[in-house]
């Protein structure tokens, strides 16, 4: 990251951030909730959230990211729950950054749930 030395530099950062915002002026399509209880954090929930930030790229207009605690399925951590506009809830478990990438590409961007990584109850 370049150091900000002048109002001009700050303005440039602001412009870049504004572009990020302009991308998401519409209604959000999905909510992604990352489970971040002690068990989730120990299993890698932070890496899941970081992977979301990376994989979503400019597609952040579609989603809101939130967090919650332990859902009582500690052996399935790290987990995320994806809620779509229609109210459908999809819970994915035992994630890693590659699986998160696939979920973003297929479910978030194309609306196709990745059955393989969903938790079976």
């Amino acid at each position: 990251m370049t150091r900000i030395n002048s109002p001009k530099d700050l303005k440039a950062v602001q412009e870049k951030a504004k572009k990020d915002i302009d991308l998401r002026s519409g209604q959000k399509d999905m909510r992604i909730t990352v489970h971040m209880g002690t068990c989730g954090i120990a299993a890698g929930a932070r890496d899941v959230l970081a992977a979301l930030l990376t994989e979503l790229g400019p597609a952040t207009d579609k989603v809101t990211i939130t967090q919650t605690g332990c859902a009582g399925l500690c052996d399935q951590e790290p987990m995320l729950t994806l809620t779509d506009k229609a109210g459908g809830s999809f819970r994915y478990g035992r994630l890693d950054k590659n699986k998160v990438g696939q979920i973003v590409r297929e479910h978030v961007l194309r609306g196709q749930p990745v059955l393989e990584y969903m938790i079976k109850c």
Partner: protein
Amino acid sequence: MRELALHILDLVENSIRANSSVIEVTVAADQTADRLRIQIDDNGPGLKVTPQQALNPFYTTKSGKRTGLGLSLFKAAAERAGGRLTLERSDLGGLRVLAEMGLRHVDRSPLGDLATSLGSVVCANPHIDFHFRISHDGHETCIRTSELAHELGLPPDDSIALARRVIETIRTELETARGLA
């Protein structure tokens, strides 16, 4: 947990669940005194049980659970590195969790990816004003997310852009932090 940054993330989660609206995280490394101080302050309701109960791994205030490991794991990490963990009343009005340990102690856990830990809580909690203070070698950096969002002209709910900015800033800051790995 392998990293101190994960313990910090876990304790910030506690503060979030306690409905705090201001959460302050301080990481201060003192090379001369060979001490590392990690402090998490919030303006939540504070401790509703005794510190002994809070630090007991088999005590939790959450229903449906039988363990509460977060604080006790952090306490163990501090003690393993020649330090201690204390719970006290914060200047912000809520709880202060203060851990001190040997900076160069052979058993000190690595700090780990602090930037991503703090960025992830910012991303998921746009309504909370986070204050991050990182000091090392006489140099201190402070980030207040409410001010940063204002400076960048971000709307209050644009947490993803804010989180990315926080991660970049802290990562850059820590690159120069000798001995804080």
